[in-house]
Structures are given as C-alpha cells and as structure tokens.
C-alpha cells in the first residue's frame, strides 16, 4: 500500500512538471537558507569543545571606573598565582597576555620578517588547560623557560617550511631572541583562545612586576571539579581584601565558565575577536524558522491550490469506496516525496552557499560543521516535521470533500480555503516587505555614515606603525618621509582617532566625583594639519623640549581640548586657555588651545571629550597626509623609506579611512546578510504567487472567456486578474509597515548618529512589492487574457 502511494506520488510529480518544479524549488531554496543558518547556529554552539571544557573558567574583572561599569577579561597578574597557591581546587592556572596589547608584533626568521597579531605570552599550564596537541616538543617543559616560544603548525610551516623548527630561533621586535620549544596543532576556528604563537609568560616584561592593579592579563584556570566554582569564587573577595585592602580597589572578580565564553562575552573586553552573540544567534534562529515556514507555506499554498483541480480524482476514489484515512496517507506520501527531493537539493545548495555566506557575513562557517551529529539527526526530523506541516492543509482539505462536492467540478471553491491561501500570500508578502524596508533603511544608514562630516578628514592619511623603532630611527623615518613628494604633512602620535588613545577623567572641580571620560592622545607635531582639524582658539601643543620645566624642576605639559571638553567645564574656548583642568594627566598640564569637535570613534557612539597632549606616552604611529595620486607608487615610496631606515623591521601600516570602515564592518555585514535573505524571501514568495496566479487563471478561464465574449479587452482582463493580487500585497503592506518601523527603529537606536525613518522608505518597499507581484502575476494574467474564449467556453 505504502509503496503504491509513493509510486503514484512520483507519477503525479512528473505529470505536473511546472507545479512540481515551483514547489520543489521554492522549498529547496527556503531550506537551503535555513540549513545554512542552522549550520552556523550549530557551529556557534560547538565553540570551545576542549577536553576539560566543564572545568575551565576565566576570571572576569567587574570594573567601576569613572562612574561607568565595565567587564574585562583582563585581570591583574597577581590573581592567577595567588588563587592557585591558596585554593587546592584550582588544578591549573595560566595568565595570558596578547603581545603589545593588540599592537602587531614583528617576527624575524632569518631574512624574513612577519607581522603577527596573535602572539600570546602565557604560563606553562596553558598547554594542559587547552589540551594543546604538541607535534614537537615536550609538553611538560614547553613554556617553563624565559625566551621560549611555541609555534602553531601553520606558523611553523610558514617560518621554516618542512624543517623541524625545534630549538631554532626567531627574533621578536628586533630586540628579543626566542627559542622554539614546540609546535602545536592549529587551534580550531571554534576556539576562543586564538593563539598562533605562544611565548613563555616569563619572557614578557610585564611578568616581572607582580601587581594587583594592572588588569591586563586574561587568566584561565582549570578546576579539579566544576562544582568547586562557588568555593573559588567566594575566596576571591577575601583575597582582594587581604592583599589590597577594601579601599581603593576598582574591581571585583568572578569566574566565567568556558561554556559561556563564546556566546556571552559581547559586553566583555577581551583579546579574542572570536566572540559570538547569543542575541544575534537567537535572531538568526528566528530567521531560519521564518524562512522554513515561508517555504512550507509556499508548498501548502501551491498544493492546496492544486488540490481543487484534483477534486475529481478524490470524488471518484471516494465513490469507489476510498476511505479518508487512505486518502490522507496518499497525499502525505506525495508531500513526503516532494520534501525529500527538496531537502536533497536544499542541502546541496546550502553546501554551495557556505563560501557565499562567509563572504557576506564575515563569519567563518567551516565545512567541518556538516559532519556534526546534530545536523544528521536533525535532517530526518526536519523532513518529518516539514512533511507534517506542509502536507497538513492540502491533505485535510482534499480528504474532507464529500464525493458529491468533489465531483461537481469547479464548485468546490470553499470560501475557507480561498481565504486561507490568501492569508498565506499576505503573510509571505508582509515578511518580504519588512525585509525590503530593512534593506532600504540599513543601506541609507550606511550611506549616511560614510558621507557624514566627521570634523576631520580621514582620507589620504596613512598611519605607519612605529613598533620597535627607537627615537633616532623614528626621527630619521619622519624626515625621510616628510621629504618625499607625495607627503603633505606628518606627525608622530600615540594614537589616531579611535585607536590607541588613553582614557582619563575630566572633572569640573573637586566636588565633581563623577567626571566625564575623555581620550588623550600624545602628539609630536602638527596633528591639526594631518587630520585637518579646526582650531577654535589658541594653538596646538608644542613638541616637548628640556626647558619645559617649572621652577621646582617638574615637567610642564600642554594640552589642547576639544569643544566638547570645554563645554563640559562650562567655559568658552577663549576662557579655558591657560587653565589647568582636573584631567588626571599631571598637575602641570595647561590648556593651550581648543579644537572643534570631531567624531574620533564610530558613529555608534556620541562625540565625547578629547585632548591632544604632550605628556610622556609612547609614540606609536607616524601619521602621514599624502596627496591624491597613484596610491601604489606612493605606498612603495614610503615602504622604501621605511626599509632604508630600518631594514629588518616589517612595514606595518593602516589607512585611516579603512580603519574607519572597519568600525562599520559588522553593520555592513548585517546589512548584506539581510539583503541576501530578503532577496531569497521575496523570490520564494514570488514562486508561491506565481503558482497561485497560474492556478487562479486556470480556475477563472471560463469567467475570462465569458467576459471576452461580452466585449472585455485584454488590458481590462489583465487588470482584473492582477488587481486581486495587488489587493493582497496592499494588505501585506499595511501589516508590514508598523512591524518594520518598530524593528528597524530599534536597530537604528544602535547609532548615536542615525537617519530618521521616512515615509518614502515604506512607499518604496510597498511599490517594489507591488511591482514584483505584478510582474509575477501578469505573465499568467496575460496568458489567460489572450486565450481564445471559444476554447474555454466549449460545452462538455
């Protein structure tokens, strides 16, 4: 019986080629998208699957600083050893420090120089905590000595080819020689700890000075038993009190289990960029379910529409004695065959879509996830549930016809089923319109951000990383580059807008406990020329010279505030000059000038206070404003100049405008993912509409024939048929407007500087939906309208 069902199902499928094709293709597309998202969701849930996962934790510092609360994964370097010493529950403990706090390291191997961003300094226990697979070297002693380093397998290949790197040396930042004591298998993409090089912690200068103050060291521990977490956590406040005293600590500590690290760290300041986002993941899950539902709706819609054509078949079967149950299983068998094929195609499409998904979203979905057992358990379940859901309505409708109803061809247009199908189309189009509105709004916002006046000009400015250069080399480089033809102006600085500033608190007076956070950037030279800032009063800071001392012999420093800072102090620019505001950057720092506000960070954040100083901070960048021209030649000239000054260091640079772009990368990625899925959703919706229109046109051939005989023109008939669908789209539009307004207002709230949602955005989306619907429907409408009425009116 069942075999028989599948056989007739297969025949039916071949008989109605167009219908089957639309149905399978629509379903497959929706499935492909949903599968792709599920793969990503699965991958996100399989992060950090280390052997001792349950036992691994990291410290989190809860910092209250300048009245704001922050969470840092970095903690002082005294914490790890102290806790381990006092708590036998802690089996292993490893402090880690990302080299240069995020600045690139330069590694020399023989003649070659490499720029590395993922060099960590770590205690020896790191090997056991993350269960590193050592391909070379001794895991017991790998990181116990200073000046030793472990290479990931791929770095070892890159540096030494196929040679065994054990006991070879590499040079870091032109001043430290490191001996390779091991090679470990690359950590998977699904590891939060993303070290490509691990140096022994004892090598780092920051390991010498044990402090309770500098919270910069991400520290991982492994407990003997995960249940000991509470015990360890309760010890932490006591430890701080014992060692620092209850006054004066600006942090408290807690433990974060490794299982939470990937998904629940968006608010935490960490070294690793491999952060997931539980709420975004939830949104993607909804999107996957929505796409799946849309595909299922499509199926239902088309199948129900066709069910009426098949009423005769049902009528005959029923008069011949078929039972309802038999018919139900027959129609379900048909659905099962169809969904099976669709899942197959959908899976193939999803696999092909992986690189596209990665390119659009900036995620790194790997093919490995395909082999995840959940996926293969999920697929049959998906098939089953999809079959049940999408087969439900058509099967019920068809099998419920009484034989008489079914045999009266064309009479079985039940109001209920028509309404149901229309509701489905409305639902699909509402979703599509919401997505289209979203696409419009997101792209307007992106556009707005890239065209907004920032108060400085990030274009044609190069930031050269001075890394390991000493003062003489720095000056030599500056002179050389300053003399090159394309150079307009240069400045040496601690930071460029949005990268590298130090944060401090500006206070009006002693009673102003809260204060305002501001960023300080030490500059040596004409930053206002390089960044094209507007000076409102006074002058810029001078380069510091030895004569800048007070009578007591201490240094005198200068600072230039931005307008925002001056406003906070309640002064006007001219008044603030010569004053010494409470800024926490030295007692003898005078204001010498005021610049206009500029957006130093991304437009997500409001403009705040900013200061240029000449206080003693490390100068890390040479900023160069250059003339527009052939960028490649310019860059080559600069690189040559750099190599002439420091032949053995890599030329590491950033363009200010591309750095700025990178701040919006995530937003752009969200926008392009939305765009891709909108196109898909609209397309799937159109397939459904196309099928429905085909069905409607067929159902109405008699009516169309009669109208033609009575004198209707082709245009009036096309209008008649299409108008019905346009009405549905209009209803969808009415539903979609408030939904999308609500949803995307919230998205825009992420930006301090945002566009307003305007009526035309909805109008454009609505119009697009109408046009798309018309294009889809008109094909069928025209076909029906130009048909010869004699054919459709022939009496049977």
């Amino acid at each position, binding site marked *: 019986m069942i075999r028989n069902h599948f056989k007739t199902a297969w025949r039916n499928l071949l008989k109605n080629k167009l219908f089957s094709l639309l149905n399978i293709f629509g379903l497959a597309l929706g499935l492909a998208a949903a599968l792709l998202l599920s793969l990503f969701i699965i991958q996100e849930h399989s992060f950090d699957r280390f052997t001792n996962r349950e036992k691994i934790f990291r410290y989190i510092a809860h910092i209250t600083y300048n009245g704001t609360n922050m969470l840092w994964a970095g903690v002082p370097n005294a914490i790890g050893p102290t806790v381990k010493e006092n708590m036998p529950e802690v089996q292993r403990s490893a402090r880690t420090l990302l080299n240069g706090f995020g600045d690139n390291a330069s590694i020399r191997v023989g003649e070659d120089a490499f720029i590395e961003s993922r060099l960590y300094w770590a205690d020896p226990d790191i090997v056991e905590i993350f269960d590193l697979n050592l391909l070379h070297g001794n895991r017991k002693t790998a990181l116990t000595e200073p000046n030793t380093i472990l290479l990931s397998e791929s770095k070892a290949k890159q540096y030494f080819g196929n040679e065994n790197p054990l006991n070879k040396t590499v040079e870091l930042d032109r001043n430290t020689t490191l001996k390779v004591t091991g090679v470990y298998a690359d950590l998977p993409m699904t590891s939060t700890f993303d070290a490509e090089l691990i140096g022994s912690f004892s090598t780092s200068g920051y390991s010498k000075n044990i402090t309770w103050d500098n919270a910069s060291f991400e520290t991982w521990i492994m407990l003997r038993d995960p249940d000991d977490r509470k015990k360890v956590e309760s010890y932490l406040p006591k430890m701080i009190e014992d060692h620092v005293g209850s006054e004066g600590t600006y942090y408290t500590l807690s433990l974060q289990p490794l299982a939470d690290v990937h998904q629940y760290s968006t608010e935490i300041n960490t070294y690793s960029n491999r952060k997931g986002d539980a709420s975004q993941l939830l949104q993607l899950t909804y999107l996957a379910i929505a796409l799946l539902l849309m595909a299922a709706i499509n199926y239902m819609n088309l199948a129900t529409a066709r069910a009426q054509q098949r009423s005769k078949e049902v009528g005959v079967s029923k008069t011949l004695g078929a039972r309802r149950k038999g018919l139900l299983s027959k129609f379900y068998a048909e659905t099962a065959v169809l969904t099976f094929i669709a899942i197959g195609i959908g899976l193939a499409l999803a696999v092909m879509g992986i690189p596209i998904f990665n390119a659009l979203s900036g995620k790194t979905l790997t093919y490995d996830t395909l082999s995840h057992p959940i996926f293969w358990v999920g697929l049959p379940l998906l098939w089953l549930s999809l079959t049940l859901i999408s087969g439900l309505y058509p099967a019920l409708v068809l099998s419920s016809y009484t034989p008489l109803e079914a045999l009266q061809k064309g*009479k079985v247009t039940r109001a209920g089923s028509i309404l149901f199908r229309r509701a489905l189309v409305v639902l699909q189009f509402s979703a599509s319109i919401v997505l289209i509105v979203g696409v419009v709004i997101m792209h307007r916002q992106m556009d707005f951000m890239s065209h907004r006046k920032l108060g400085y000009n990030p274009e044609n400015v190069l930031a050269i990383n001075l890394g390991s250069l000493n003062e003489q080399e720095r000056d030599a480089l500056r002179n050389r580059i300053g003399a090159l033809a394309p150079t307009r102006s240069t400045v040496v600085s601690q930071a460029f807008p949005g990268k590298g500033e130090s944060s401090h608190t500006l206070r009006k007076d002693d009673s102003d406990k809260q204060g305002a956070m501001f960023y300080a950037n030490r500059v040596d030279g004409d930053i206002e020329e390089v960044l094209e800032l507007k000076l409102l009063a006074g002058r810029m800071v001078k380069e510091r010279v030895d004569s800048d001392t007070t009578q007591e012999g201490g240094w005198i420093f200068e600072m230039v505030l931005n307008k925002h800072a001056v406003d906070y102090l309640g002064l006007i620019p001219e008044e603030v000059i010569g004053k010494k505001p409470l800024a926490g950057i030295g007692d003898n720092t005078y204001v010498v000038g005021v610049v206009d506000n500029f957006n130093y960070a991304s437009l997500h954040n409001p403009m705040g206070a900013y200061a240029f100083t000449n206080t003693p901070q490390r100068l890390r960048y040479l900023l160069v404003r250059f003339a527009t021209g052939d960028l490649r030649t310019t860059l080559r000239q600069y690189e040559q100049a750099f190599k002439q000054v420091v032949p053995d260091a890599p030329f590491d640079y950033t363009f200010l405008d591309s750095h700025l772009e990178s701040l919006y990368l995530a937003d752009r990625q969200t926008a392009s993912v939305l765009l891709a899925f909108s196109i898909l959703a609209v397309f799937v919706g159109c397939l459904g509409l196309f099928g429905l229109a085909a069905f409607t046109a067929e159902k109405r051939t008699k*009516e169309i024939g*009669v109208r033609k005989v*009575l*004198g209707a*023109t082709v245009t*009036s008939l096309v209008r008649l048929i299409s108008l019905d669908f346009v009405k549905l789209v209009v209803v969808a539009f009415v539903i979609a407007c408030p939904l999308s307004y609500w949803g995307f207002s919230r998205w825009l709230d992420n930006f301090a500087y945002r566009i307003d949602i305007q009526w035309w955005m909805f109008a454009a989306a609505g119009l697009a939906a109408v046009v798309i619907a018309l294009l889809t429907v008109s094909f069928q409408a025209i076909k029906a309208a130009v048909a*010869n009425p*004699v054919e459709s009116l022939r*009496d049977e």
Partner: protein
Amino acid sequence: MIKITELQKFYRTEEVETVALNNLSIHVKGGEFVAVMGPSGCGKSTLLNIVGLLDDLDNGSYLFNGIEVAKFNERKRSDLRKHNIGFVFQSFNLIDELTVFENVELPLIYTKVPAAERKKRVEEVLEKVQIMHRRNHFPQQLSGGQQQRVAVARAVVNKPKLILADEPTGNLDSNNGNEVMQLLTELNEAGTTIVMVTHSEHDARYADRIIRMLDGQVLMETVG
C-alpha cells in the same frame, strides 16, 4: 444581415486535420428567426462561433450588415461584437462570483454605459425575464431555467441586433425550455434577429426557417 459564402473552417491538431465547415453558404435577413439543426459534430457550434465573431475563418467571405468582417482582427471583432451581438449558451456561462444583477450588467460596462443608465436597463430586462426578485442572488442559488433566463437577459441588455443561442434549452426540462423559447420569440417579434442551434424539433418550430447541416455543409433549408 448575415451573408456567408463559401466558408471553410479547419481544425488542425498534430495528427489530423478536421474539416469542420466545408464550402458553407448561408444568408440570414434582419429580423429573421433561424434554427440550425444537425447531428452532433456536424459543425453547428463552429458556425455559430464564426457568425458571432468569436472565431476566425480559413476561407470564404462573411458580410455582416454589408461589411466584410472575414479579415477583421480580434480588436475590431470585439468592438463589433459587443455592440451588435448577444450570446446564449447551453451551459449558461454565468460568472459564479457575480450576482444576477452584476452578470447582466457586464455587457453594459464593457460598452461604457453610465451607471445610472445601466441600473435602469438591467432592471428593465430583469423584469422582462421575470427574475427581478432574484437580482441579488448568485447563479448557483438559481434553478437551471432561471439561470438561462438570466443568460438571456444578459444577451439582450445591450439591445443587440443579433442573438446567437447554442442549444439554449439543452440543459433544461421542457417547462423551463418553453419559457426560454417564449422569451426568444418575444425578442424576435420585437425585431431582433435570432440564430439558434438546437437538437429539438419542438424548439425548431418556433423559428421562421430551419437550416439542416451535415458534415460541415448545409443539407437543406425548410421554412417553418
């Protein structure tokens, strides 16, 4: 009014070519009531469709009110048709989604008659076919005879000069059939030309003249 000479009509399918009408000539004067009879498949409906400008012809000439319409395109045919010809079909062909009133109103909409005028004229003909009390019903809610009366009303509402009826009583019992024939006779007496296809000798007797067809040709004509 209708002068058809040497008319030929073929149906070509992939395997065979059917000659539906073969060198057929007929002549219908204005105000006449003509019945067309003949065995199934002899080409009656085909002839009616051509006379009604629903279908084109392959050979021959067709003068409608003295105008050669054989080479008319769809648009011109449609214009001529909607002002001059009304149709009554065996299976009524009312539109299920429209009420009785709306069905009858349709031809007036297509000839752009103003709404007020439409209402007046629709009500007039509905009175005439005695279906006024059912004006807001849907076709499925009427009996076959009532449906065919509505179809007749729709055919005449535009005051056409010619009414073409293809087996108008084919789906009706004799009582209902007679009512419809009565209606057609009244219309004819009021001056409308009628061409009616029928299988019923009884119905054919209402006509002034009977054209008998066989295999796409006129076999003989009898005056009733």
